[in-house]
């Protein structure tokens, strides 16, 4: 008994001492680092090489590399590292066997893209590779063949693969932005690529056109127009072959498509004051969703279609409310300020962007959809910033701003960083709406 006790205690002692001895040489405290030096991933795109070194090829090499760089930069995920010595291509193969990753990581780069262009007759062959320079491995390797004027699409396809590889979602490259412009003297709807490229006119109403809204499959646009002398909602297929009219007496405004359905919510005032109704895409009323004195308008759907945020003046000032369609319960979301409108539900479901007037200025705010935390302001002292709309992956927000005088379309990240102008056309551009991913 005694012996075993002695044994036990000695054993415990020994174990303890042994253990501590193991750590005694390098006992370390944790040094805290809370501020990453870079809040974006450092990426480099080396010059694309031209396989046959022809002038056309060199030209295409430069163009396509530039488009790739711009498109990836647009996502705001990457910080492009420019290093002349490193980015000068040697014009031979796409992936030189001894790709020196070390020299790239030495300048901080974590991702590298190399490219190689070959022109054969009227077609172009693009070989693009994405590398993780720190772990020294290739993440993506693609080879595309297409006509020369289709290379833009191909570059965007590769971008989409890159974003998918890094974030798990396909990004914004296959999306468009609808917006209003008074280029013809009257407000009409125009549609451009996600990066503001190639805006094309969509409506020819020759009157006041407002509130473009994309269906969740991207095939329909609903909007309000005074073309028939009254604010009516027009529902048009993107190819313009089909159209429907929602023209109840009074004001028909702010259409918002239900995710996954040919159904939309809209504000109709035929009952005496603007209320929100659920309608089929053809214009038949399915259900009345609000029943309050004073205005109810601007519906926006949660990505799963179960909840709807909207603006209501029922409490005396325009504020944002959320209605659970199944339970019918409505709760107020915004309590700060006297004028909160234009709510837009993020495709990620967690946040709602909106515009608020404070001290005579309109600015864009974001609030979590549960309303647990105070709202965060994204734009500051730069004219009027309104009409926010989320990119299909919820990473970017497009909006209009009068910071430069005339109203223009701007883009920023979901955190409010990297605010930049999207495009500029004659007249004023307002009310942008980002399409879903095509």
């Amino acid at each position, binding site marked *: 008994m005694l012996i075993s006790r002695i044994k036990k205690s000695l054993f415990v002692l020994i174990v303890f001492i042994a253990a501590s001895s193991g750590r005694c040489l390098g006992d370390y405290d944790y040094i805290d680092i809370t501020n990453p030096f870079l809040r974006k991933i450092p990426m480099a795109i080396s010059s694309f090489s031209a396989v046959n070194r022809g002038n056309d090829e060199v030209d295409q090499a430069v163009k396509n590399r530039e488009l790739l760089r711009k498109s990836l930069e647009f996502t705001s995920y990457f910080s492009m590292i420019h290093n002349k010595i490193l980015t000068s291509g040697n014009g031979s193969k796409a992936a030189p066997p001894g790709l020196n990753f070390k020299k790239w990581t030495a300048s901080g780069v974590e991702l590298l893209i190399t490219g190689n262009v070959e022109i054969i007759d009227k077609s172009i062959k693009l070989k693009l590779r994405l590398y993780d320079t720190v772990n020294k491995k290739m993440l993506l390797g693609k080879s595309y063949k297409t006509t020369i004027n289709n290379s833009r699409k191909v570059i965007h396809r590769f971008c989409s693969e890159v974003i998918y590889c890094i974030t798990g979602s396909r990004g914004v490259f296959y999306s468009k932005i609808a917006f209003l412009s008074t280029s013809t003297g009257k*407000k009409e709807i125009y549609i451009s690529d996600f990066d503001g490229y190639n805006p094309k006119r969509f409506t020819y109403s020759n009157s*006041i056109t*407002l*509130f473009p809204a994309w269906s969740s499959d991207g095939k329909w646009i609903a909007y*309000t127009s*005074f073309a028939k002398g*009254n*604010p009516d909602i027009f529902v048009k297929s993107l190819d313009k072959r089909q159209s429907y009219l929602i023209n109840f007496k*009074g*004001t028909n*405004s*702010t259409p918002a498509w239900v995710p996954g359905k040919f159904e939309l919510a809209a*504000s109709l*005032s035929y009952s*005496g*004051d*603007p209320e929100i109704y659920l309608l089929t895409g053809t214009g038949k009323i399915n259900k009345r969703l609000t029943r309050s004195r*004073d*205005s109810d*308008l*601007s519906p926006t759907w949660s990505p799963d279609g179960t909840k709807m945020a909207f*603006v209501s003046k029922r409490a005396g*000032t*325009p504020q944002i409310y959320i209605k659970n369609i199944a339970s019918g319960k409505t709760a107020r979301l915004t309590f700060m300020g006297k*004028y909160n*409108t*234009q709510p837009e539900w993020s495709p990620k479901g967690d946040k709602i962007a909106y*515009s608020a*007037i404070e001290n*005579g200025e*309109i600015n864009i705010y974001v609030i979590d959809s549960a309303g647990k935390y105070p709202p965060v302001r994204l734009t500051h002292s730069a004219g009027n910033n*309104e*009409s926010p709309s989320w990119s299909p992956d919820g990473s970017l927000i497009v909006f209009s701003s009068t910071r430069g005088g005339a109203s223009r379309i701007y883009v920023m990240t979901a955190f409010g960083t990297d605010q930049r102008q999207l495009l500029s056309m004659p007249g004023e551009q*307002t*009310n942008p709406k980002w399409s879903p991913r095509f």
Partner: protein
Amino acid sequence: MKKNLWVRLALCFVLAGFLFTVSCAKKPMAAPDQPSQEELAAEKAAAEKVAAEKAKLEEMAKQKAIEEEQLRQEEAERDKLAAIEEFINNDINFAFDCSALTSESQFVLKQKAEWLEANTDASVTIEGHCDERGTNEYNLALGDRRAQSAKAFLVELGVGESRLNTISYGEERPTDNGHNEQAWTKNRRAHLIIE
């Protein structure tokens, strides 16, 4: 001797005058039973003249009457137009983000109601407008509220509802393109137009 000369001369003269006048007087009296052609014509002409003058006077009177009538009509027209103008131009103004009627607005609407009572075949569209501040969506709804507000009041005053239409233009059709308090005040309005 001179005196006598003078008396004789005077007598001569008097005699000559007598003879003369007698002879003149004698002439017409010479044909009292036979009027001459000339005399008839002259009479006729004189009568015609009088008639013509009378006619002329009548004509003038008529003209005057017509003119007066015209003038009255024009005045009435002008009054009417003025009333219409007043009807159209006198907007009902609102406070910011408000669709309630001020007492001034109510007064203006009463005047409009009166006009509408006097012009029973007139139909009217009430437009609701907003100033440029705020967002388009909300302003379109606010304009709608303003138009409805004005309409409801007119109906209360006895105007037939079927005669009143409403439309909202939100902030899309300002009447003053300025970017100041003055412009904004003007733009926050309900505006009536006659159809």
